[in-house]
């Protein structure tokens, strides 16, 4: 499932981690975002929040040492680091809704040029709708990054003029990390900040459902 060119899932996760400031409180969504926890850049300390009630989430347990009652929001077994704290769901979402988390990195089905995010349902007639904490996260966390393959498996663009899937939140995403590029959501539209190795703007534009603005010369 690796693209011939562009970043792997692990590389995308690593790229996001580079942009997280030291000391940040971070919530990681399910999928590629979960991989980010492995890539803390030298000299930084992040505190990971999992909305099912833990601040100070650590890596996966060693084989055979997991506990069924120590899990993350994706229901995978995790560990707790020194300095961790457990709390109930209302306190956990008080952290989220109250703006106490610095960053949330979520997967995406679609991101629109204005930052609208769709990541919980395709809205299909047979789909079982399941939203989890995504709507609370995008409404409350200070900054929302989306990390996603640039296109669907069928090759359809995921960055679009307007989302066709049901929204998770309106105008919430500030930055998008894909296998092909790092893209900022700006009042003018989607602006490319960085292209993956071996990829040019035309290549990315061809795979994008809305106009991409070129990166600004760095000042």
């Amino acid at each position, binding site marked *: 499932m690796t693209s011939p060119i562009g970043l792997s899932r692990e590389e995308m996760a690593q790229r996001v981690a580079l942009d997280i400031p030291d000391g940040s409180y971070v919530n990681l969504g399910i999928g590629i975002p979960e991989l980010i926890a492995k890539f803390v850049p030298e000299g930084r300390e992040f505190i990971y929040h*999992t*909305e*099912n*009630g*833990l601040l100070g989430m650590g890596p996966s347990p060693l084989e055979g040492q997991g*506990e*069924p*009652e*120590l*899990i*993350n929001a994706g*229901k995978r077994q995790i560990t*707790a680091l020194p300095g961790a704290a*457990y*709390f*109930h*769901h*209302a306190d*956990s*979402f008080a952290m*989220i*809704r109250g703006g106490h988390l610095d960053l949330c990195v979520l997967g995406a089905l679609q991101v629109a040029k204005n930052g609208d995010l769709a990541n919980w349902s395709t*809205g299909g007639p*047979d789909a*079982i*709708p*399941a*939203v*989890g*904490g*995504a*709507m*609370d996260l995008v*409404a*409350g966390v200070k900054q929302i990054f989306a990390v996603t393959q640039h296109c669907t498996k069928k090759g359809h663009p995921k960055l679009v003029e307007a989302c066709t899937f*049901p*929204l*998770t*939140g*309106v105008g919430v995403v500030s930055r998008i990390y894909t296998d092909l590029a790092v893209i900022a959501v700006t009042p003018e539209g989607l602006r490319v900040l960085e292209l993956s190795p071996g990829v040019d703007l035309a290549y990315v534009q061809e795979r994008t459902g809305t106009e991409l603005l070129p990166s600004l010369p760095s000042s």
Partner: protein
Amino acid sequence: MIDKTVPSVAQAVQGIHDGATVMIGGFGEAGSPIELIHSLIDQGASNLTVINNNTGSGEVGLAALIKAGRVRKMICSYPRSQNSTVFPDLYRAGKVELELVPQGTLAERIRAGGAGIPAFYTPASVGTPLQEGKELRSFGNQEYVLERGLRADYALLKARCADRYGNLLYNKTARNFSPLMAMAGGTTIVQVAEIVEAGELDPEAVITPGIFVQQVIRIPNPAHESDLVRQGVIYP
């Protein structure tokens, strides 16, 4: 002397009536009171409205309760799991209703119910399909949706440890919704692995004060849902 312990799971759940609203603690299997749920299946109450973050896994616990046709309506945030088709199948067949609630809104609605707050405003779901039919209102420059407090006739919970007053400690991320549901349940029934003497729990560290708990039942070695699913157990 106040003593909220009851001798059997059967006795704990015997009062739950057809048509009752029942909150069930847990996030996935963490904190799921599986022995209480199985006892509720045995007891036979039906036409239940169940509030839980999920819809169970495999064919044990909550999934088994749903499969047995006892649940008229689920109120939850995430009715999918990797290893259960019980809810999806019944939902597609129109045999169970779903009220889908964002997870933080669900938690806050339960807390509000328990805290005597009939309604509150939250930014979650504004501009999405889950806001439809709900009142919007602006405070400052932002729009919010009005959400109602949730109460239940019963709350079925799992904790690690209790005393005779019903003071509770939980285990790690098995805490999740349970302290909120304890507040919002008219009759809160808790299965615990251990019961200690009054005074043994550090009063600074009690998570659920006993005032929110009506019955405590000791289940010393509770089953883990994932173990049962792996073993292919189907309840009953």
